[in-house]
């Protein structure tokens, strides 16, 4: 296991190197950031002066090696847009992103686990059809639509929650529901099918025949074994959530990583794009690693050595 972990950590280095190169090339190819920073009226001389002041008139290779040189010393450079160091700009967004990710995952788990299990238990019943249909709907609803509808209904009409912004727990409810329902829909279906498969296994019949209670059979014998695919999906969704839920963040003016990243891409703010992608890559790698560790906890037969 230790060897495995070490190997996984060492893999991070080339992955990050490749990611930074690809991002650098893509942002560079996207065009001139100066044209987005000055008004349409600025003359070519004004643009050239700013380009020179920001070091953007240097050739590609020079800019890249300059960037890598700084990166090795932990410096991502200065954001053109904010005129501040890029990494702190990214790191200050993490609490908001984590907060929303955790709340959304919680909403998803609270919805998905009981519904998934119940729907498997009552297979082909009306309730099963209702839950399965509902999960298709949950997955199909676009976040921007659901977010706006929730605002209209629960924030504007009934005024139960704040419309937007970040602050109290109440601010978190609507964005967490918006993000959580999509994940819950996927997880519900997965738990259902995974449970169905397991409930037909011989050992479940054995457990039932030896007189184990219904609850014990479902939760102790079946549910744990159905969790491996669920954890996979959760791992993927957490990676997705920590990399920022752009649309939901925009609808609810939630100052998270996704909002920062998209604005940086639109403004061709290389330093912030690099720092954000770098931090997200590390988060995704860590989440994947944790997922693998959770597999082992769930199923001791899994051996990484």
């Amino acid at each position, binding site marked *: 296991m230790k060897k495995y972990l070490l190997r996984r950590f060492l893999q991070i280095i080339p992955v990050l190197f490749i990611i930074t190169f690809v991002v650098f090339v893509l942002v560079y190819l*996207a*065009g001139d950031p100066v*044209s*987005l*920073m*000055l*008004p*349409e*009226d*600025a*003359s*070519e001389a004004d*643009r050239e*002066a*700013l380009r020179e*002041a*920001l070091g953007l008139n240097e050739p590609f290779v020079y800019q890249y090696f300059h960037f890598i040189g700084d990166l090795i010393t932990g410096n991502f450079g200065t954001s053109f*847009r*904010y*005129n*501040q160091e890029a990494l702190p*700009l990214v790191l200050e*967004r993490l*609490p*908001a992103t*984590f*907060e929303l990710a*955790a*709340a959304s995952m*919680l909403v998803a*788990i609270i919805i998905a*686990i009981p519904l998934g299990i119940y729907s498997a238990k009552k297979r082909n019943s009306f309730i099963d059809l209702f839950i399965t249909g509902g999960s298709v709907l949950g997955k199909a609803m676009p976040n921007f639509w659901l977010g*706006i509808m929730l*605002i*209209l209904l629960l*924030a*504007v009409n009934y*005024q139960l929650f*704040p*419309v*937007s*912004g*970040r*602050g*109290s*727990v109440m601010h978190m409810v609507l964005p967490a529901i918006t993000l959580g329902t999509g994940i819950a829909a996927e997880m519900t279906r997965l738990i259902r099918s995974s449970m169905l498969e397991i409930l037909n296994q011989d050992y479940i019949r054995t457990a039932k025949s030896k007189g184990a209670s219904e609850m014990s059979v479902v*939760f*102790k014998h079946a*549910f*744990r074994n159905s969790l491996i695919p669920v954890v996979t999906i959760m791992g993927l969704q957490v990676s997705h959530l920590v990399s920022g839920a752009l649309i939901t963040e*925009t*609808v*609810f*003016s939630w*100052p998270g990583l996704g909002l*920062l990243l998209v604005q940086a891409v*639109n403004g*061709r703010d290389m330093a912030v794009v690099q720092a954000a992608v770098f931090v997200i890559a590390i988060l995704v790698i860590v989440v994947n690693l944790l997922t693998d560790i959770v597999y082992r*906890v*769930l199923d001791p037969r899994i051996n990484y050595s």
Partner: protein
Amino acid sequence: MKKTLNYLIVFLLISVIVVSGCSSNTESTGGNDNGKEGSEKTSLVIAQSADITTLDPQNSLSTNGDRVFRNMFSRLFSRDSKMEIQPELVEKYENIDDVTWQFKLKEGVTFHNGDPLTAEDVKFSLERVMNDESLKEYPYFTQIKEVNSIDELTVEIVTDGPMPTLLRLLAKSGADVIPKKYFEEMGLEEFQKNPIGSGPYKYVDWKRDDRVVLEAYNDYFGDKPKWKEVVVRAIPESSTRVGELLTGGVDIATDIPPNEWDRVNGESGISLINGDTTRVMLLMLRHTEGTVTADPKVREAIDLAINEQAIVDSVLKGTAVPVQSRVPEGVLGSNPDLYDSYAYDLEKAKKLLAEAGYKDGLELTFTAPKGRYPLDGEVAQLVASMLGEAGIKVNLQLLESSAFLDVYNSKSNKELIMIGLADGLLDASYSLVHYTKERAAGQTDYYNEEVEKLFHDAGRNLNEDERVKQYQKIQEIVAEERPHIFLFQQGANYGVSDNVQFEPRLDEVINFSDITLK
């Protein structure tokens, strides 16, 4: 197994509570006293479509930024609601000779940390913006040659030649006075964490992409600030801005797009208020030899084929004004004959095309942005179909904002390109520079000797009446020769709570103290 699951849920619950607990101090959300009966409302909340990007007033160059900085910092001069220049920090001033100006500052002005504002601070601030090329406001300040502090309250500015726009420049964004001593002690990075100005509101907090919080500076040298606290929120999604307006979360929401107008107008308690901007949507036409638009008859035909009033009425629901000049009313040097007017004569347009040798029609490429200005794509499509009626086949190239800017800035546009241009100085010189040979090169390739001479003479003319006439003459020539065909002056649309009284300004700045409770 249940244990593992329980652990997971408990962990998630704890992390939500811990993280939200850490951030619960952000709950000084504005508008907290909004709508509460019995208590006088003392907090104003404004929602913009984008956040400010910096707390350095000389490196912002955006309307969203200026709305905050105008209330935090002072300038030597300011614009009143009619866009007339008024002294702000200045007690009196005189023009010693054509290039030397002397300004006597008001006594008793203090920065938010209590330090007095002196001539040294003015010198430091102006020298910073005129020397540091990396500042976005730098290009506008290059005509100032030197700034001298004569005594504690007297500043002398020397320009590189007669500069009739100096006072306007000193009222523009970027001319904000920052405290020399504090700035030098703290450095830019630290200054931005706790910026200090001498305006009516002082900085409290900035959460990026969320809100800027300001509070009244009670020792402000001018009229006492009207609001105890002002919160400027960034809410990019327009329907959310309107939602906040409806629930009383914000008092004023800027940039209400046309698809929300009916909703804002239809709800009780809030209203849509339309204002003007200095931005004029226009078509740039190539005069480059070899292009079809080099022929003046073709240019006139294009102008006559477009019904600007119909565009304003149908697409923009009457919230814009058709114009025939880049300099709208309210900007110094505007030509009233060319404001709120347009030329449309489809039959004559067809005739002109026939005379120009394009009886069977002609083909040209029209580049336009989509998503950069309100309803720009719709306007471009309507223009293209109007040109089609006159027999001009248009290859419409609708581009997303940054791809559009690449075409515009690299001057790789073909015959026609549509763009909206604003005037940050509110002076015709800012707009009319486009018709000089140097600026037009590669873009429209327009050249007119008389325009060139008028522009350069006006640029050094300290007699304002004469200067206005020179600029008006340039606009007449341009309207005739059509390097640009003007569509309309763009409007600004605000959603405003019925609790407050708000008048939009042409420069789109919001002076918080101009907003009052009804």
